[in-house]
């Protein structure tokens, strides 16, 4: 599959490169050739009909990226990535068309079933021919419902667009905020993303508006494949509220091994953003081969007084996860929250956590991290709580719990606490435990089999985080935890 695509891409690239004006002006092509240079960046920008300022922004990022180095401080064993041996732009790919679910990998179908995904949705996820229309009908009742949603959002004044559309339709808004939270040079992967991001989401909630529904990338599943360099920008104007759901519990396979997304959130006075993620990218086989590298930069600025940002994440997928959804608490009385469950099994590696940077007076933050390690995996919580000298009366509470299943895995906790203001109250607690034999026998004596018993106990361990998720996400996430740990006991 990957080979076929690569060959097509190569051919397209070959055609393009023989074109006498270079491929950069030839936007008829579906693929940019392999490798990364300024022409690749120009090609992407041209492909998307971007205004000149956007191209300049990308080029600036690209030039900065050339001078940067990959991070090395995480407890991760990252194989060398050849950035020239990859494609940076391809039209939304045609997945292999399947006639029916019978042609889908039975392993994937089994997981769908365990998750309780309706048949029609399964077809969409698996890419069965003609399934999309049906699925939209099945999920949203009818196409008109989706249209109703859009109308409802528009009536409320909410802008919910792909970022490509937003760059064209709302250039001033995008220009004002893009890169304002995660500067281009912030880190190696964020910089790369800034240069070559393919697509993503833009959300703007106007002043005083409570977004009438949960916004979800799920709505747009398969409608647009946003690819490996996703870019999300959410701006909540004064007094507004939005809850955004990212990801999907269904196992997602992707030929792109490297995913380097950037998510920026901006909350103005009294605004609140709730950002929930369920990440279940392909973790690779039992030996870790073929899994996704997920190097994401997520950051929010609570710019306004009393603004609030809440990150909730359930991370079960990817071979390597490198991710620290953070809050810059600039506004007085602003609130940052981070709730995380990270599960690693087999050879997975996760180094994830958060940064809470307290700048504003009376700002508060809460961190609850639940790490579950099984198999031969490594699971690290890495978090920073910083209180600047001018930040009076800051409160932070951090709870970091690790659960180990088996004696071949690792659980690590690396908290940094940096405080420059005496009125701060900072508390950090951490525990490490395993599932006790007593708990297992008790649950089994009451009739649960070993896997269900583990799933139940693990869900109890992660409850504080799971209950932060919107209802429909929470139920799926619970099942997902159990599935991710299959084969880890016995």
């Amino acid at each position: 599959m990957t080979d076929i695509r690569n060959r097509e891409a190569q051919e397209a690239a070959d055609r393009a490169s023989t074109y006498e004006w270079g491929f950069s002006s030839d936007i008829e092509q579906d693929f940019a050739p392999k490798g990364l240079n300024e022409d690749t960046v120009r090609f992407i920008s041209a492909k998307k009909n971007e205004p000149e300022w956007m191209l300049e922004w990308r080029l600036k990022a690209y030039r900065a990226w050339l001078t940067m180095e990959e991070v090395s401080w995480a407890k991760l064993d990252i194989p060398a990535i050849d950035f020239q041996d990859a494609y940076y732009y391809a039209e939304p790919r045609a997945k292999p068309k399947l006639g029916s679910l019978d042609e889908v990998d039975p392993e994937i179908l089994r997981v769908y079933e365990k998750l309780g995904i309706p048949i029609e949705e399964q077809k969409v996820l698996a890419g069965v021919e003609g399934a999309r229309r049906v699925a939209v009908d099945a999920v949203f009742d009818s196409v008109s419902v989706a249209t109703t949603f859009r109308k409802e959002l528009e009536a409320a004044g909410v802008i919910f667009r792909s970022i490509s559309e937003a760059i064209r339709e709302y250039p001033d808004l995008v220009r004002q905020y893009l890169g304002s939270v995660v500067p281009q040079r912030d880190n190696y992967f964020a910089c790369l993303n800034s240069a070559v991001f393919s697509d993503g989401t833009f959300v703007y909630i106007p002043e005083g508006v409570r977004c009438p529904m949960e916004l979800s990338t799920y709505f747009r599943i398969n409608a647009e494949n946003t690819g490996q360099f996703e870019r999300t920008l959410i701006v909540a104007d004064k007094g507004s509220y939005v809850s955004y759901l990212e990801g999907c519990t269904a196992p997602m396979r992707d030929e792109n091994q490297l995913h380097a997304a950037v998510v920026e959130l901006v909350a103005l006075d009294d605004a609140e953003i709730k950002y929930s993620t369920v990440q279940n990218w392909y973790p690779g086989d039992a030996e870790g081969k073929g899994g996704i590298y997920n190097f994401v930069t997520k950051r929010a600025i609570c710019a306004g007084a009393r603004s609030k940002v809440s990150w909730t994440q359930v991370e079960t997928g990817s071979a390597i996860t490198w991710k620290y959804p953070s809050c810059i608490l600039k506004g007085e009385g602003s609130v940052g929250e981070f709730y995380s469950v990270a599960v690693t099994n087999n050879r997975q590696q996760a180094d994830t956590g958060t940064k809470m940077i307290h700048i504003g007076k009376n700002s508060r933050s809460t961190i609850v991290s639940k790490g579950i390690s099984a198999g031969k995996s490594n699971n690290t919580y890495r978090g920073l709580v910083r209180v600047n000298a001018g930040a009076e009366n800051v409160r932070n509470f951090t709870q970091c719990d690790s659960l180990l299943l088996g004696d071949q895995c690792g659980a690590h906790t690396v908290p940094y606490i940096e405080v420059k203001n005496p009125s701060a109250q900072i508390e950090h607690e951490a525990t490490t435990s395993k599932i006790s034999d007593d708990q297992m026998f008790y649950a089994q004596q009451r009739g649960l089999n070993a896997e269900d018993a583990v799933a139940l106990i693990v869900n109890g361990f992660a409850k504080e985080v799971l209950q932060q998720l919107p209802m429909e996400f929470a139920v799926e996430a619970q099942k997902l935890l159990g599935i991710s740990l299959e084969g880890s006991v016995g």
Partner: protein
Amino acid sequence: MLKIENLHAEIDGKQILNGLTLSVGAGEVHAIMGPNGAGKSTLGYVLGGRPGYEVTQGSVSFEGQDLLDMAANERAAAGLFLGFQYPVEIPGVSNVQFLRTALNSQRRARGEAEISAGDFLRLSKAEGEALGMSMDMLKRNVNVGFSGGEKKRNEMVQMGVIDPKLAVLDETDSGLDIDALRVVGDGINRIMRQPHKAVLLITHYQRLLDIVAPDFVHVLADGRIVRSGGPELALQLEREGYGAIAA
């Protein structure tokens, strides 16, 4: 219902049960009494199928099935309930969630339909009320923050909801004050004193037996039953102590 023959069992290579033989029929309540270290709790764990307890000799059949051949959860589904001396805490998991998962696991294993959410709530509420456990208590995490007495009552609520055929109750009376003992004892009678059910009461003292009157009393010492009799044996033990009788 339950037939134990010449049961030998050990843990960590240490022999605890030494040829225990016991037969329990439907409609019967048996009390197993004995001094500390006689193997009372081990008997409960071996019947429940706790990993680590190794049966080296003998057999146990439950309603004609080979009990020792079954995993702990299969024994539960077959109708065996073990009341724990020290009920286990499971943080983050509510009693209601735990019990419903347990009940439905058992039902599925028996090929029965799962219980509906409404029916389950009614059932657990009724059992809770009968044992003085409010719905608020049942919504709290499994045994977390419960007093010793609350834990034991919680075991009885579970027994009432699960409705087993055979209950093996390990020191269910320990840690209970006199009022709680009455509540728990009445619960055992109500739930288990039925013609198609049976109870194995593992206990130290007479006091629970005043409420749950046993049909048979056995004295366990050094991993064997050294004496059996009717209810009068328990009274005699109370008067004379284990020393005299087990000798």
